[in-house]
């Protein structure tokens, strides 16, 4: 067992992890934050996307020990109490989700994009979510959601 310290959604945790455990195991099993999903477990589908030190990662591909001293944001860390994040609002309004299984990862990729690039064009949006499969929506309403989120976030600023 290894000891790690990891900050998840603003809370610092000290955990004992197995050397083969992943960040996804830490999030889902150790911390019980089941909003982050496991689709393929191979870094191909993007359902487990979280933000680590400002960048999106497939949490199934990050070993828990690699997350030591890192700052992680998961889908549970986005809303401020009952007040939803503008990205969440936009996905609701535009119908940017159906079954919802890709949604947490998709929203985390969107958040990382809009922090880097507050007014992306369509091509940039498509590229930013290229690592996140969605089998339900055909992406059209997701792309629309990201555009609306970008607009709303700029208005807030």
């Amino acid at each position, binding site marked *: 067992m290894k000891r790690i310290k990891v900050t998840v959604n603003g809370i610092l945790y000290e955990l004992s992890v197995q050397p083969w455990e992943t960040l996804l195991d830490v999030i889902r099993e150790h911390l019980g*934050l*089941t*909003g*982050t*999903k*496991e*689709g*393929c*477990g*191979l870094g*191909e*589908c993007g*359902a487990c996307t979280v933000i680590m030190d400002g960048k999106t990662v497939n949490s199934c591909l990050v070993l828990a020990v690699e997350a030591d001293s890192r700052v992680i944001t*998961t*889908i*549970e860390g*986005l*809303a401020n109490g009952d007040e*939803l994040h503008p990205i*969440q609002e936009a*996905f*609701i*309004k*535009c*119908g940017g*989700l*159906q*079954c*919802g*299984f*890709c*949604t*947490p990862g998709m*929203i985390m990729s969107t958040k990382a994009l809009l922090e880097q690039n507050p007014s992306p064009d369509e091509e940039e*949006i*498509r*590229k930013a*979510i*290229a690592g*996140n*499969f*969605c*089998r*339900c*929506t*055909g*992406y*059209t*309403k*997701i*792309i629309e959601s990201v555009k609306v989120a970008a607009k709303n976030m700029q208005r807030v600023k």
Partner: protein
Amino acid sequence: MAEYSLIGKPIPRVDAKAKVTGKAKYAADYSLPDMLWCKLLRSPYPHARILNIDTSRAERLSGVKAIVTGKDFGGWTWGWMASTRDEPPLAVDKVRYMAEAVAGVAAIDEDTAEEACGLIKVDYEELPGVFDPEEAMQEGAPKVHDYVQNNMSVEYHWNFGDVEKAFAESDIVREDKFRTSRATHGYLEPPAILAFYDPTGYITVWAAKQSPYFLYRHLAACFKLPLSRIRVIQPFIGGGFGGTKNDSLAGDFCAVLLSKLTGRPVKYVESMEEELTTSRRRHSMIVYSKMGAKRDGTLTAIQHRVIADGGGYTAVSPLTMYLAGFATPLPYKLPNFKYDAYRVFTNNPIGAAMRGHGITHSRFAAEIQMEMIAEELGIDPVEIRMRNAIDNPKPGAIYETINKVTLKTCGIKECIEKLARDPIWRDRDKMPRKEGNISWGVGLSGTSYLGGARQLGHQSCAAVVRICEDGTVNLITGATDCGQGSDTVLCIIAAEELGIKLEDIDIKRVDSAYTPVDPGSYGSRVTILAGQATQKAAREAKKQLLEAAAKTWQVKPEEVEIREGQVFVKSDRQKNMPFSKLAKIACYSGTGAVILGTGYSSYGIEPLDLTTGIGNGGTSYSFTSQSARVGIDMETGKITITDFVIASDCGRLLSPITAEGQIEGGAVQGLGQTVYEDFIMDKGKTLNPTFLDYKMPMSMDVPRMKLIDVETNDPDGPFGAKEASEGSIVSTPPAVISAIHDATGVWFKELPVTPEKVIRALKLSSRA
């Protein structure tokens, strides 16, 4: 048109907040104290006799609590029909496809369970396998099931009119061979279940099922318990699309049995590799299509001989093969039709249902062949469709096909007309045809799909509307929202009927201990049938509420109206109260009344006729016309799809955002099976069981999409609704193939069309 408060309005989904916050819990998100993990041992051979299974070493591994093999299920088998119960929970005497499960282990964690699987020793006698359905039909081919002659799993022979005479009298007759891909559902949530067998004889499961009442019945039968003791609780479902998440799986049966043996809860989560290796995927079908027409393009006859690769077991395929035939006379007038269907056992993974079930194969063949005929006759693609398309019956009238499929509304002509006027089609010759190596093309299709799929046995959906004393409402149905948005649609229907706000309706997910039995979420049936049930239940509850209001105001119930949460007397608006007050009055009347409305669907209850193919497969039918613009790199074969325009007649759209999402999603899934997706098989082994190698469309691949709504008002649907979930997965393949032909001059008859196939075809055509 009636004024609606909610129907047709751009209302967000009722489950959206739970999903964007990560609070929606899926099957794998559930845990129980003291829970064990299940893993399955799967066969390394596609066809082998099981001589012996030795579990002794695995049992000695620390942390292993129980192991089950096929024999432990006491010979129980299951299937879609009484006559097709050919599938055991775990293979017993032999394995019939690669990675069929042979043993299940319960251990204290997933790693231990997996390690234990590696310690189980199975002695196999490898048998010669058969992997091509046409070879499997031959005399002397290896037998997948010993009692089945020529590996014939399902066989239909239907004959309407006189095709031979029609072909003899036709000006043109074409014969072509088409083949569809081995596509799969591709949901991101792998199958999962958490099961607890209470020692007093109750089973409770949380399972990722789009049709949870399949599992409910299977568990009762398998474990010989009354249905009243089977509790299937529905988590959120991470996509379904038919097949795997309709049926019960080895992991479901094993988790329950292992829980029974250990007295502890057992959780099973399939890996994506297991899912992609064993999924009950879309059948790959060979369609031998013969089509005749007059010189003016009028269709005279279609003869289809369809051969489907069935894999190791029957599953839902009697329905698959029915669907691949019954709808061929839609959406074009067809006076003569012959259908010979052969679904053949092979040692491949099981073929089953997938969105666009059955129809996508035969309609793809028929659409492309009709275009080939149009090309030979020099008739415009729009013109040949308009000449053959079925007219929209006048209100009250019914159109009947040669096999007695009946239409009360049919918007196909309007769909095609509107699509032809859209710039992508209309201005196709003004757009560049060639830019560098890229050759551009535009194609078009016109198709149909059924809504409100019929069944053989239990068909109706049911709903209960329970009025709470504070004016909020519980909507209780047996329907499952596996992502398509039916919970939202059902809430809209209930709120509209009751005249209250959407947020005052709370819909319950399935819990078979409390919710009414429901056939399931397949065949685009939920909006139409659970929708009708909800409408009836709401009306019945409203009747009781109106009576209570009438009594209070000393008026007749028909003089009272409820709108947007306000109750009032129509002729005297001074007499009014909020809905919450009426609810309290009604619930407190006498010594306390129970205000419940119940309803069940009555549309489309005549059972299917599988043997003759006569009659309806659905309750009503959607119609779609679609154009696609593609660019082909003539040097590399790369296919770029830039535009889809989709005109759909889905009846009245109850929830436009939801319906649009279904149409867009179906089109992109259809795009996948047209140009990307195919399982590459080698003697029963799936060579590409990962999302890296099984290519699904990504955000970069999808075209601009424009939707055109063609509204009809179908009498056999709540508020005039028809299906909206599957039409576009049928319309996309022919539209794209037609566009690729326009760009390259080549007709592709085998899906998917990959760059390699394009290059090969271009080389062949330049040589010719």
